[in-house]
Each structure stands twice: as structure tokens, then as C-alpha cells.
């Protein structure tokens, strides 16, 4: 392998390669996948001069450490965290140069959950169905990072992208998710619908890339029985038999048999992906 590569020194709790996913294959049972906080991923890519859809790294909770074989341009965004090269502090949220062989350390998230590490040229693993994203539901794409793994890089753009004063919205203290009710709100009691839109929920530690799981009032069904399998969308609020809603994120299954009481606006899902366990969640209906 040539020197356009990085070695994974510390993979972290869960670090995956992500881009903007592989939409268009849901009819074959293939999840969309892709970065959970796409706005942060796009911005980090722009900062290093990459195409917005270039593959980068999505860390979870405690960052990662990498050693590039050649000098690279790096930007870390998403969840705020300390960034260092051979122990020296680097700025977070802007592009910085990391020399060949230096240890790039992306520290634990100070707030939020998921940091995005964009490297000039992008991560150049082989795409699967047009995407380099790791899909944890169906196992498509590269495996999550492991210590010692080597990731190839693409050719870096000659000129860095121009980004001035990029906005980095901080992770929320309270997650407000705008929803539109349906398609199966008629499967629930009026009390359940009131509970959904007036009571407080908390982000459960069981959340993952497939769904944001919530603790809080169980939503009671108005009718028994099973729903024949139907197509699911990103942001669907699915209610399994225990009544606790699950908000579908990028690696969600493409069909399912539990009723969807409402769908969250796609623009609100990036914040959902940064909400740490225990964060209060409120659903509000929006047209």
C-alpha cells in the first residue's frame, strides 16, 4: 500500500467509515445508512476541501487515534472534543495539517456523542452499492475500525475548500423533535397521542445507529393485532409492543411490522444523533 493511508492506533468505542449512504436500494432490504449527523459530516468534508459526500470517520463517545503515513489535512467536527497531533493541541472545527507519522488524537466528546474526522482525499475503501458507509444492521460496507487497521486515502484536492465562519450547532440540552403524526396514529389511543406530544421522554442508553430508543410513558394501542410488514422511512417513530417509541436513524430496517405513530423531520435527526443517554426529549407536532 502506498503512503496515502492512515493506521488506526486506537479505534475507540465505535468508529465507522461513513459518507452520505446508499439510498435507492430500500426495495432490496438495504438500509440507507450514512453519517448520522450529515450536516456535521458535510461541513467537516468541506473544511478539508473534500466533496461533501466523501467518506470520513464517525466516532462514538470517546474518539479515536490515527497515524497518517503522509502529511494530511484534517478537520474534526460534530461533537466538540480535544484534538491533538503528537500531543500538541490542534483547533477543533477547522482544517489543520498533521505531519506524516504524527499521532492524531481525537479525544472524548465533551458534549454530544459523535465526532466526524474528515481527512483530505477521503477514506478510499472500496464502495459497496455506491457507498463506503458501514451499515451496522445488514453488515454492508467496511467493518467498524479495529486497532491496527490501515485505511487507504484518496487523492487530496489541490486547493482547500473555502468555508468561512462555519456554524457548528452545539448538541442540545433538550432534544425537541418536530413530528408529523401518522401513518398509523389510528392504532393508538387518544391518551397515547397526547402522551407522545406532551410528556417528557429520555434518550435510552440502548440507542444506536439503527434507532434512538426512548424511555418514558408507554404508548397504548387502540387495537390489538399485527400490522402486515410495510415500508419504513428515516425518522419513523416506531412503537414496539412494549410501547416505548424508537426513532429510526440511518441504519434502520427498510420494512417493519410495528406501527409508526409519527415521523420526525429529517432536519432534526442530526441533533438526535448527538443526544447523549438521559437527554430529555420532547415531540412537538409540526405541519
Amino acid at each position, binding site marked *: 500500500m502506498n503512503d496515502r493511508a492512515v493506521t488506526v492506533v486506537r479505534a475507540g468505542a465505535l468508529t465507522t467509515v461513513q459518507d452520505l449512504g446508499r439510498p435507492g436500494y430500500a426495495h432490496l432490504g438495504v438500509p440507507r445508512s450514512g453519517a448520522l449527523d450529515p450536516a456535521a459530516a458535510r461541513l467537516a468534508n468541506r473544511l478539508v476541501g473534500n466533496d461533501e459526500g466523501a467518506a470520513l470517520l464517525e466516532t462514538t463517545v470517546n474518539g479515536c487515534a490515527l497515524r497518517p503515513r503522509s502529511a494530511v489535512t484534517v478537520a474534526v467536527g460534530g461533537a466538540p472534543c480535544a484534538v491533538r497531533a503528537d500531543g500538541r493541541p490542534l483547533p477543533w472545527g477547522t482544517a489543520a495539517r498533521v505531519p506524516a507519522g504524527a499521532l492524531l488524537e481525537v479525544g472524548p466528546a465533551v458534549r454530544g456523542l459523535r465526532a466526524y474526522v474528515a481527512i483530505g482525499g477521503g477514506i478510499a475503501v472500496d464502495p*459497496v452499492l455506491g457507498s463506503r458507509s458501514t451499515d451496522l444492521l445488514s453488515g454492508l460496507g467496511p467493518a467498524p475500525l479495529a486497532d491496527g487497521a490501515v485505511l487507504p486515502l484518496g487523492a487530496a484536492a489541490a486547493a482547500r475548500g473555502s468555508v468561512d465562519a462555519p456554524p457548528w450547532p452545539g448538541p442540545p440540552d433538550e432534544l425537541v423533535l418536530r413530528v408529523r403524526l401518522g401513518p398509523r396514529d389510528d392504532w393508538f389511543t387518544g391518551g397515547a397521542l397526547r402522551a407522545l406530544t406532551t410528556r417528557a421522554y429520555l434518550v435510552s442508553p440502548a440507542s444506536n445507529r439503527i434507532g434512538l430508543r426512548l424511555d418514558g410513558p408507554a404508548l397504548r394501542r387502540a387495537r390489538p393485532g399485527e400490522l402486515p*410488514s410495510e*415500508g419504513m422511512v428515516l425518522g419513523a417513530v416506531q412503537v414496539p409492543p412494549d410501547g416505548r417509541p424508537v426513532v429510526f436513524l440511518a441504519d434502520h430496517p427498510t*420494512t417493519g411490522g410495528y406501527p409508526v405513530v409519527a*415521523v420526525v423531520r429529517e432536519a432534526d435527526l442530526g441533533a438526535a444523533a448527538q443526544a447523549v443517554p438521559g437527554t430529555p426529549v420532547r415531540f412537538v407536532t409540526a405541519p
Partner: protein
Amino acid sequence: MGERALLVELADGAAAEAFHAELLRRRAAGALPGVREIVPAARTVLLDGVPEPARLAAELPGWEPGPRHARVGGVVEVPVRYDGPDLAEVAARWGVSPAEAVRIHSSAEFRVAFCGFAPGFGYLTGLGARYEVPRRATPRTAVPAGAVALAGPYTGVYPRSSPGGWQLIGTTDAVLWDTAREPAALLSPGTRVRFTPAAAPSAGTGAGR
């Protein structure tokens, strides 16, 4: 459904199949710009990435069903060794011998109604209503890749090893899902399928993987 999706509910599976075929015909003709996903299921078809869902929803009742054009593409033949651990139980539920159950299953023509559960896993219809079987009370923790299985009105083939609660009636060496192949999925919605009885492989042969 949400901001940019429509979930269209049809009367039954056959109506969903016809509506799905009509959607694909219109999309091929360029009439559904922007629509990213068309996902058929048991009794519904989901359209995602619809620029103006309310407008499309208002148009749908006025759609004239297209001509029932001859289906392009042939029948995919899936060779099966009918050696599944649940074959005897399925035959008993049907009130026939295992040999007769094999004859019934291998003489039907199936159609992929929809996919889901895992990439390349199709839900195939084609057996009469009297041949529906329940899922196993206790799912298996590992069903091998290539297992041919029944649940409810559906036949399915596991593309890879996974947990599963379907009744296993046989095994195939056909590769259901291979991302290095174009197309990756052997079975996609609308594909017609026949299961053909295959002899058990003699020692030392069998499909290479």
C-alpha cells in the same frame, strides 16, 4: 408520511403488486421525478423522496391502471435440496406426506412480493392460502445461509446466516446476495421464481464459495 413520503395502502397483496408495477412503469417513463425509493410490502407501497407528497396523493385516485404488459425476464430457478428440519412438520400441517409437500412446493410458481429483513431476503408468494404455516414458537438463533423457509403465506431464502423463526424445508446453493455481482440481489420485487428439487450433493462436490 413525514415530509416527503407517501404510504399507499391497497386492498390486498395483488392490488399492491399491480400498483407497484404501475409505479415502476411510470418511473421508467420519467413521470416520478425525484422519487428515491419505491418499497412494496404486504399491502402497501411506500414512496420516499417525493417532492410534493400531497399533490401526488391527490393524483393517485385518478390513475388509470396501465396495460397488463407481459413481464420481461424469465423465471429464476432455485435448486433446492428438500432436507430442512421442519419439512415433516410442515407436511403434517398440510396433511400430506413429506414427498407430497415437496411436490406441492416445487410445482408452484412464486413471485417476490417484497424484500426486507436483510439485503436480498425476498418474501415470495405463490402457495394457496391453505398452505400457510405459523412461525416457529421459538426462533432459531442461527439459520444457515441458503435455508429455504416458510412463514405465513410466504416462502423465503436466507441470504446469510442469521437468527430466524421460519420453518426450514430445504437448502439451496444459489447465492441470493452478492454485492460484487450486478445485480447484487438474485430476487427483487416482481421476480418470478420456481424451486426445483435438487439431489443431495455427492461427497466432495457442491457449490464452491
